[in-house]
């Protein structure tokens, strides 16, 4: 496990050194990747749209993008599991790249995080690879994302297979998108502040999942639901923005909801509400209220783990509560990614991600 | 001059018990001559043990004058007192304190040895006191009376000039006490020792030359008529 942490740490060290300046380690500068001006990379802007299935693939003209799965699963006897799998692509130089054959390049770096969570138990593994060797990559058609022996494979149009093996856990899951992908923000351009800047962002809000999870010596047959994000940009945050809080929620009545808050000089809110039939609506700041109501003293400081989410127009008054325990994913760019349970006007489950906290 | 073994004038001694200062002896005076046996009686808690501890140098008086064998207590150092206790003053206790890890005969030999006496008539002493058969037993294997007699043997083995006794028959039954007492006094008379005996036992007190009462911190001659 240690070697993986080391390689991950080193890669994240890299994330903060894109412009090749100062070699310092501070948490502050670890966000330069997200905040620096594009410098040769293409930037997401209002008016851009998402085209599928091409945009499931990689975007070498952009600096940073990810393929992000979060899932809430249950075993037959009611045990709960949270699964996260993310593949990041980090461009060092803007593409497209002239070298078509595999070779030793330093154009981009791939990074993957895999996590398996249970109440009060969090397992994490990471992988890192340079681009251009074939060790990691994404193909749009048929959809395939891989790094080393981790693989998210679009076996057919509506079945994806995810295989992940780590030192102390592994999973093999079958994911079936039940609803068509939704565009977040304005037709896929998701602003992250009122002053411009943002990303192209679309999601598969509801994947029906089935498969096997192995943790320690135990094997479980599991099933549940998941949310898949696809996002790319070259500058996510403005210099004054510290981080964000994001959640993807699946409600009992068949609706799905994604909301986030970017914390900065002025907080920025946005969200997407997906109804049971798959139609989606963007929520702007006036349409919902998101507030942290309880903090937890975690290993890296106090974090808001219980939230109040009110969407009056949708008759939603929810309390979103994190599972007990610590769900920090390690690295220089430490972030929280943990499952949540929903109560209040509706019940349900989901995931909470928080970045920019802690010391 | 050598006749006066103890000369005490106006002795005071008090204890601190937490915050209180309890005055035990107040203005106590006493004179004891060689060959004299003096009994001290008094209610319990009146300071009899304290008196004995003052006289053998285990405790210093707060004020007053004390002369032992003609020497003033202020001149005597700890080591001087220790030497006195080793060679000239014998103290007897109620429970006949003997060294529990030595046999009776070794106890006797030990006392004599401490006093620097090369020869000692330990066996004769034990014989005289009627406990010759206990010579190789340990103190906890003896009865109360045997223990007291063994303590006597130890005391006499060091050939003291002064004996201080704290309730020597206190833990003995009547019959045993009757048997031990004469041995005690015979030895005192024989060797012309001075003896100060603290006791409850009126019969024992009667055998002494003088009876003093320790009351309110000082010694007065005991008046049997005033006994209350």
């Amino acid at each position, binding site marked *: 496990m240690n070697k993986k942490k080391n390689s991950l740490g*080193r890669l994240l060290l890299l994330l903060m050194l894109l412009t090749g300046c100062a070699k310092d380690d501070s948490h502050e500068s670890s966000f330069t990747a997200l905040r620096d001006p594009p410098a040769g990379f293409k930037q997401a802007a209002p008016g851009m749209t998402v085209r599928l299935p091409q945009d499931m693939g990689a975007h070498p003209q952009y600096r940073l993008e990810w393929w992000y799965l979060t899932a809430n699963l249950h075993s037959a006897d009611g045990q709960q599991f949270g699964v996260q799998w993310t593949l990041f692509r980090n461009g060092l130089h803007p593409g497209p790249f002239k070298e078509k054959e595999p*070779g030793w390049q330093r154009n981009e770096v791939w990074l993957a995080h895999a996590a398996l969570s249970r109440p009060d138990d969090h397992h994490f593994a990471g992988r890192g690879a340079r681009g251009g060797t074939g*060790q990691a990559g994404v193909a749009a058609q048929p959809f395939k994302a891989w790094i080393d022996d981790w693989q998210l494979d679009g076996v057919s149009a509506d079945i994806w297979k995810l295989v992940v093996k780590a030192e102390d856990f592994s999973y093999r899951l079958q994911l079936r998108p039940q609803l068509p992908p939704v565009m977040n923000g304005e037709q896929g351009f998701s602003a992250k502040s009122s002053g411009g800047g943002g990303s192209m962002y679309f999601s598969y809000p509801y994947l029906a999942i089935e498969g096997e999870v192995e943790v320690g010596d135990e094997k479980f047959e599991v099933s549940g639901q998941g949310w898949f994000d696809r996002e790319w940009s070259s500058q996510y945050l403005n210099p004054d923005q510290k981080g964000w809080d994001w959640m993807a929620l699946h409600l009992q009545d068949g609706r799905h909801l994604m909301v986030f808050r970017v914390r900065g000089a002025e907080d920025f809110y946005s969200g997407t509400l997906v109804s049971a039939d798959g139609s989606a609506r963007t929520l702007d700041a006036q349409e919902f209220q998101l507030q942290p109501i309880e903090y937890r003293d975690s290993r890296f400081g106090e974090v808001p783990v219980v939230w109040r989410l009110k969407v009056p127009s949708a008759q939603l008054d929810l309390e979103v509560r994190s599972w007990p325990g610590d769900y920090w994913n390690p690295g220089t760019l430490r972030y929280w990614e943990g499952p949540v349970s929903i109560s209040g006007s509706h019940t349900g489950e989901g995931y909470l991600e928080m970045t920019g906290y802690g010391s | 001059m050598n006749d006066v073994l103890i000369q005490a004038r106006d002795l005071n001694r008090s204890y601190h018990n937490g915050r209180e200062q309890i005055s035990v002896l107040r203005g106590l005076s006493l004179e004891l001559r060689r060959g004299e046996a003096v009994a001290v009686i008094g209610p319990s808690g009146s300071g009899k043990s304290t008196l004995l501890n003052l006289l053998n140098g285990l405790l210093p008086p707060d004020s007053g004058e004390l002369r032992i064998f003609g020497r003033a207590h202020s001149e005597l150092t700890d080591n001087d007192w220790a030497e006195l206790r080793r060679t000239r003053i014998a103290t007897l206790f109620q429970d006949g304190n003997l060294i529990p890890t030595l046999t009776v005969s070794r106890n006797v030999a030990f006392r004599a040895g401490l006093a620097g006496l090369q020869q000692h008539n330990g066996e004769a002493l034990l014989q005289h006191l009627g406990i010759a058969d206990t010579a190789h037993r340990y103190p906890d294997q003896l009865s109360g009376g045997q223990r007291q007699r063994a303590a006597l043997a130890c005391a006499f083995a060091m050939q003291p000039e002064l004996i201080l006794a704290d309730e020597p028959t206190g833990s003995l039954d009547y019959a045993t006490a009757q048997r031990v007492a004469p041995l005690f006094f015979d030895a005192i008379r024989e060797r012309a020792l001075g003896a100060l005996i603290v006791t409850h036992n009126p019969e024992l007190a009667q055998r002494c030359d003088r009876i003093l009462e320790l009351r309110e911190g000082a010694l007065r001659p005991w008046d049997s008529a005033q006994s209350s």
Partner: protein
Amino acid sequence: MGLGTVFLSHYRRHPGQLAGLLLILVCAAMLWSGVRSLTGSAENAVAKSRAALEPLLTVERVDGRPLTVEDFARLRRAGLCASPRLEVRFATDTPDVIGLDPLSAACLRQYSAQDRQGEDSGAAVAKKLIAALDRPLLLGGAADLSRWQRLALPGTEDFEFEQLDGLPRGQLFADISVAAELASTGRSKLAILLPASALQKSVLPAGYRTQVEDYGVEPSPLVNAFLLSLDALGALALLVAALLVRSVYRFALEQRRRSLVILVRLGVQPGKLRLALIVEVLLVALIGGSLGLWLGERLASAMADGFQGTLSSLFSVDTLAKSSPSTETWLGMVLILVLIVGWACLDLLLQRRDQWGAADSGVGTGRIATRKWRIVVALFLVAASLLVLLSSSTLSLIFAATMGCLIGVGMLLPELLNALLARAERHCQQPLLEWSCSEMRALCRLLSLPLTALAFAIATAIGVQAMVTGFESTFARWLDQRLQGDLYLDPGEVVATEEWKGRLRQLPGVTAVLPMLRGRALLELSQTTESPADELPVDVLAVDPASPLLQDWPFLSAVASPWTELPTRGVLINEQLARRKSLAVGDQIRFRLGAELQSREVIGIYADYGRPEGELMLPLALVPDSLPNRYSTFVLGVDDLDKIPWREWPEQYPWMAGSRLRDQAGLKRAANAAFIRTFQMTKMLNGLTLALAGTALALMGLVIFRLRQGSYTLLHVYGVPRKRLRRRLIAHSMLVTGLLALLATPLGVFLGWVLVARVNPAAFGWALPLHLYPGFWLQVWLVCLLIGAFVGLLVGNPVRLETLKNE
């Protein structure tokens, strides 16, 4: 006002007793958890050092084609932790550029096989490269950098250079993409490396095979032996801890005897009393035990941390066991508690009604009878255990017998002390001396359990010190034996030994060449043999007996000059073979080398740590070319390793193409560094055991001396001055602990002997040397005297007039 209040009232009146009780429990628990934690750390350190020494493999294609990027990707996608290395060579006298992929370099724990300085320069390289991933950076020594810059290759104008010390000469490191760019201007070769352990987790895909790139050093058997002994030490510590706790409880009960007796007289049922006592025991044990457990872990990690700064370690900070007590430690603690409660309860349960009132008789007749019986039992136990120990080779029996010996000796020690003091007492002329002896006897009797615990701690300290030092020197010698000379050369194929020897000797800078020819032979076991069952396959090692590189060969027994006898008449065998076939120097053995049958006399037996196989050592001349599995390697002595371009030899000399060379000294250094930490930790264990046993003894001693004040006061009344009594008390205390240390030393030597000469051979087939270290004993004795003096000083004034009032 219930029973509970009465119980508690005792502690209210004597709060010091409760504190003392808890403190001793804390000490015992600290000892146990500290030992467990340190043992765990040592095991971790060993695991890490194993990894540091493990072999490194290169992957090759079955079809022999050179490796490419796709091969790397294929291996990674198969789940193997592989890392590429692209070597680019330029004109001679220009340093090579080694391209690494820092993203996967972490796979190779033993990153740089050329890690000469022992620093983790490998990690530093990877770290710098990843920080500079987007630009071309070359790392290396100053001289190499300037030489390379002089080349001034086209397209390298924007290269950056950084000096990094500790890197091997003649090599510059860069990101693999940078090396790939340079590949066109020089000769390049791609290698893909794997740690050997990776193949245990995943399977190599078809079309590939592996080769050993670096043999590493396989210390497993030695390491396992060491760990086994560590576990034994842990068990001993547990015993010491249990003894301490038991003594405390026995003692505490004695203190309470008076109030308990009164309670019985008042009519409280003894059964209820027992129950209340048991509950009290459990409560105090749980509190003291938990606190001690936590403290022990803190102490152990603090001790382990203290060494981090002084050692240049190969391990990262995270790997040291700083975690909260493991389940096993908790279980162990529970076990102790259960044992203690059971033991204490046994006392209580066995106490009959009439005994509740009995005063504690010091030296009664009844006790004498019990004592005699105990001595007999103890002697019998020791004798029987010794017998088993000397005759058996089953590991479990050996452990049981050792335990039996310890218990027997533990029972005998207080008696021995008593007997010695009684003897002294009888022969004393001076009365005070006699009294002193009797006092010390009383002391020993009252403190018999904690003294026994201290004795065990002393014995453990001495035994473990002997074992660890034995291991250290053995390990050093084993490394010497395995890593002789300066360079090790593996030709990669079967070669003509003599021819190569001649050629190697002529290489510049080479001062000595020792060929080591290995093969297999068959040892004949009986005179009339035809069937294969009577033959034992053994390894053969053939050397040149005249070589100066054959120093430090550890002989267990040998004739006068074995190396000169070897060419003419004798054969040397290793310890494993000698043990297995009960051979000794002077025996005649017959063996088959290929088709030839030889008969030779055994002229020496050498220690061969860590291998299960039997081995024969023969002179080179004797070995026929047709020896099965014949393979030669060479050990070279050179004059200055730094100045010789030995790395380039396989390229320079065509006859050496395909050979592998290894720097012996550097590997030896790395292996040593890895194990130093392990040994250090074991020594810490020792210190911990001794310190805590001493503390517990001191605590109890304090209380016991309080009890004995009556005795000293009596003597004061008899006329011994206070100061003299004080000095005597200190002397008593020092004498008792000092005497104990002296008596416990042979026990320690015995333990050490058991560990190296019985446990090891039973478990692994080879014995370690037993060395005596009187210097260490002196230290231990001194410590014991100091403990005694400390306790004596702490007691202060031994005279208390109040003790005269009651007997």
